[in-house]
């Protein structure tokens, strides 16, 4: 695999960009930071599938495409299916000797939103991982169905206000806990699983490169701060992501072959969860006195998860 050096940012910046501007994602959208970095961290040919969601509708607005590589748009539930199908065809044609450039390095990547990954494309993703396709699935996790106006998904965290679980007089918003897709994918048989965030660019690039180099199905959950639905100023996308990783609301770790868990980022100063919540409009109501207990519960959940991750890292099981 031809990898781009990510030793430091200066080296990385000599890469040749393959994700073009004048896509229509919101100003400050993290989806494009993640996609751009994936495409910039390798020289290999890429076959990318993207299902319906903000990324797809904004990067293929007829008659334009922002992709400098083979790219397939497919229906909402099928990002994994399209990548798996392309990969299976590639292998078959290689075997039959009908490929024009059989030695050219090719990598298969699927991008899906959390709505399509955690909910609607879940069984198709699970099937593709079970079949062991050699591909990398990247979930752009903005914790809601952003493209259709901010409905809740099973990735939406407790207490967030969304259009289908709004906070108001009788409700504090989302009542269910965020689904643990990393544990599910590791148990599903994924060879490599990682949680990444664009503010930790090097950590993210290293996870991408590991996944691309892994022979087998890989799942990456990427924090994608959404200025529109999380309700923060577009300039603050990286600041919000810093708060997410440094408060451990969004811990960064990897799971290799289902068992070997490594924490890949340990913040020097762990910030209180309330700092992360306070920076976003979707959690504004949690700061009413009657909801103070919810913030305490948040902090406890985050502490418990961190404790769990550390124990799993130590136990190697």
């Amino acid at each position, binding site marked *: 695999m031809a990898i781009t050096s990510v030793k430091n940012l200066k080296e990385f910046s000599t890469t*040749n960009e393959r994700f073009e501007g004048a896509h229509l994602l919101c100003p*400050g959208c993290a989806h494009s930071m993640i996609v751009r970095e994936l495409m910039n961290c390798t020289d290999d040919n890429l076959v990318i599938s993207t299902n319906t969601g903000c990324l797809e509708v904004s990067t293929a607005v007829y008659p334009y495409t922002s992709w400098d590589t083979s790219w397939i748009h497919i229906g909402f539930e099928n990002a994994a299916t399209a990548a798996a199908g392309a990969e299976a065809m590639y292998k078959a044609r290689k075997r039959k000797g009908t490929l024009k450039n059989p030695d050219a390095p090719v990598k298969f990547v699927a991008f899906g939103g959390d709505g399509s990954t955690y909910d609607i494309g879940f069984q198709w993703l699970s099937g593709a991982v079970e079949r062991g396709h050699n591909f990398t699935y990247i979930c752009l996790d903005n914790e809601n169905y952003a493209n259709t106006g901010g409905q809740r998904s099973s990735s939406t965290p407790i207490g967030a206000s969304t259009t289908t679980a709004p906070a108001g007089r009788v409700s504090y918003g989302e009542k269910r806990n965020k689904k643990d897709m990393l544990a599910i994918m590791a148990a599903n048989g994924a060879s490599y699983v990682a949680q990444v965030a664009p503010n930790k660019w090097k950590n993210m690039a290293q996870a991408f490169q590991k996944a691309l180099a892994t022979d087998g199905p890989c799942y990456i959950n990427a924090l994608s701060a959404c200025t529109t639905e999380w309700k923060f100023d577009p300039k603050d996308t990286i600041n919000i992501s810093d708060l997410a990783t440094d408060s451990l609301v969004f811990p960064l770790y990897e799971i290799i072959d289902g068992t070997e868990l490594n924490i890949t980022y340990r913040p020097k100063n762990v910030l209180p969860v309330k700092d992360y919540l306070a920076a976003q409009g979707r959690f504004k109501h949690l700061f009413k006195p009657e909801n103070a207990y919810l913030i305490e519960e948040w902090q406890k959940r985050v502490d418990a998860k961190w404790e769990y991750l550390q124990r799993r890292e130590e136990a190697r099981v």
Partner: protein
Amino acid sequence: MSNVLSNKKRGMRELGAEKKVGWDEVTHGVILHSFEDDATDVAKRKAEDRNYSDFSSYTATVASWRVIKPVYNRDICIDCQNCWVWCPDSSIISRDKQILGIDYDHCKGCGVCVEVCPTNPKSLLMFGEALSSEDAIAQWPVKEKKEK
């Protein structure tokens, strides 16, 4: 690297300015070719050495989205590349580890680059869209004292 800053192909058209085929005339399945010629080694070439087709959004502009714009001040910049890595619109032009400037055809004015710039004063600042870059640089702030 001849025409990297003023690449003729870049940002030629407003989005939606030109319709090739109406949406209702498209049959299922459309292939858009991003490049005019063979694209096999595109990952080895910079934008200025690629032959983009009119289908690539590289040839389109979103400049009209902006009301404020980032202005770049070369004198203070340390070429750390923070602005390059985090720009969501591929609009910081960097070559040979140096920042050359901002691609105003694709920049949407989000301000992320200004937030992540570590110098003091910052080497990127937001100004009104109508102000010229020279005028902006003439009013650049001086170094801020650290708060005790």
